[in-house]
């Protein structure tokens, strides 16, 4: 066992861990940050995605001892950091509880079971950090290491677009089901 000093969501946390402890184990089992999920054991699903110095990585294949001194952001860190930023900057008018990407995911219905979402939201947040108006193709590519089994990705992509539109002050793009449909054919009416 070794005493590690990890900077997680802005806080420095000291804890004892074995050399083989992964960041996933430490976050979930030592720090109680259970928003970081375990889905596949070995780097195949992306549910354990966290940000390391702003970049999405897989906590299940990261040794905790090797990320000392780096900025680790988990899903639990997004909203508080957002609120801190809002408080610091007087021009921010909206001080929602949620980080804008989280808010967009919630609004767009991107959260079904929610199990892949913390990783997905972190991948999306990192994308929007480097490209605040990503094309659909770019969004798909940036999220292609995060498996979702519920949504078919559509509402997730819509959520990222919504966050981008919100950021730019644009109108939201209409979704397929919001387009006008044909007139009822008179069948099935009660």
């Amino acid at each position, binding site marked *: 066992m070794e005493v590690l000093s990890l900077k997680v969501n802005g806080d420095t946390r000291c804890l004892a861990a074995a*050399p*083989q402890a*992964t960041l996933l184990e430490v976050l979930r089992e030592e720090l109680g940050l259970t928003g970081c999920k375990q889905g596949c054991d*070995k780097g195949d699903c992306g549910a354990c995605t966290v940000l390391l110095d702003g*970049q999405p990585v897989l906590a299940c294949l990261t040794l905790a001892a090797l990320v000392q001194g780096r900025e680790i952001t988990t899903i639990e860190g997004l909203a508080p950091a957002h609120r801190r930023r809002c408080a610091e900057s007087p021009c921010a008018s909206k001080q929602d509880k949620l980080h804008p990407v989280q808010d967009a995911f919630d609004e767009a219905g991107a959260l079904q079971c929610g199990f892949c979402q913390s990783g997905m939201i972190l991948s999306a947040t990192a994308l929007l950090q480097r490209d605040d108006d990503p094309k659909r193709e770019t969004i798909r*590519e940036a999220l*292609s*290491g995060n498996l979702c089994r519920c949504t078919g990705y559509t509402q997730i992509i819509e959520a990222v677009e919504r966050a981008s539109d919100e950021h730019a002050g644009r109108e939201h793009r209409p979704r397929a089901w919001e387009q006008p449909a044909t007139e009822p054919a008179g069948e099935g009416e009660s």
Partner: protein
Amino acid sequence: MLRLPPFELLRPSSLEEARSLLVEHGPGARPLAGGTDLLVNLKLGSTEAQTLVSLAAIPELCGIREEAGELVIGAMTPLAQVAASEVVRSRIPVLAQAASVVASPQLRAMGTLGGNLLLDTRCQWINQSHFWRAALGFCLKKDGSKCHVVEKGKRCVAAASNDTAPALLVLGARLVVLGAQERSMPLAELYSSDGAQHLTLAADELLVEVRVPLPEQSARSTQHSAYGKLRRRASIDFPLLGLAANLELDESKTVRAASLAAVALSAQPLSLPKVAAALLGVETSGAQLERAIVAAGALAQRRLKPLDNIPGDAWWRREMVPVLLGRTLRAALSDTGPVNGDPQ
């Protein structure tokens, strides 16, 4: 959840220290780069190590620089950085393309170029849990004596699955390796044909950097390269077949030099000089090109025989050899790589 077995973790801050730790700890010690392959294999028990020597804190292993007509890429440079590098993209695009299609965004941020070159060979009978392999009765890559791919096979045929290896092969890359002394060797010499022992490095040798000769840029000669990768999904997956092509054209658009390499076949990434030779002297602006591509494809198909080592349909992979070769060559000539499995 599947957890890592216990090991000792060492964190040298210099190359010399790393090497001496490897010497000190003997064959049970393994260098650890991005961890995206080694840690998975340790979790599964398909690899063992008593000591991991992390290379993460050695600054000189990371970075891309130009030096005397060569691009020098540190072994610990993340694949994402290689893929995004302006100089790599513009001067040796095949490498940027290959790096850009390895696994997924997260794994490219973690995985390194050196780690990809040293990636363990893969096979459907070895990339499984200890429970699974025990139920099978193990195989000759580890813990067993039988090959389940080739009946009565005595040599492991697990497949090289590293996308960047063929890219660097066609670029004529050399490796700088630190052992008792520093030495330099052509990339091809890194690999052996035994899937269970596929690297020629000694246990205490470290891959330090990759040196790629930068093509001359002149009006009289242009260089065109591309990487083609077949996989089931357009992300995450290892290659079912990977092909790299590098062509040098003279001012009349005639192929003056050609090199080709393939991966996901046998234990080694394979250079294909004889196939490449079929392209020499071909005028790429004319009808000759398509004939040459067909001829090269037929040659390649005779030479490359995918086995039932990695998951997937070996027949299909074999049929794909000429198709992927043709597409990769065309992408190279039109500078439109990488080629993926998307319908054309």
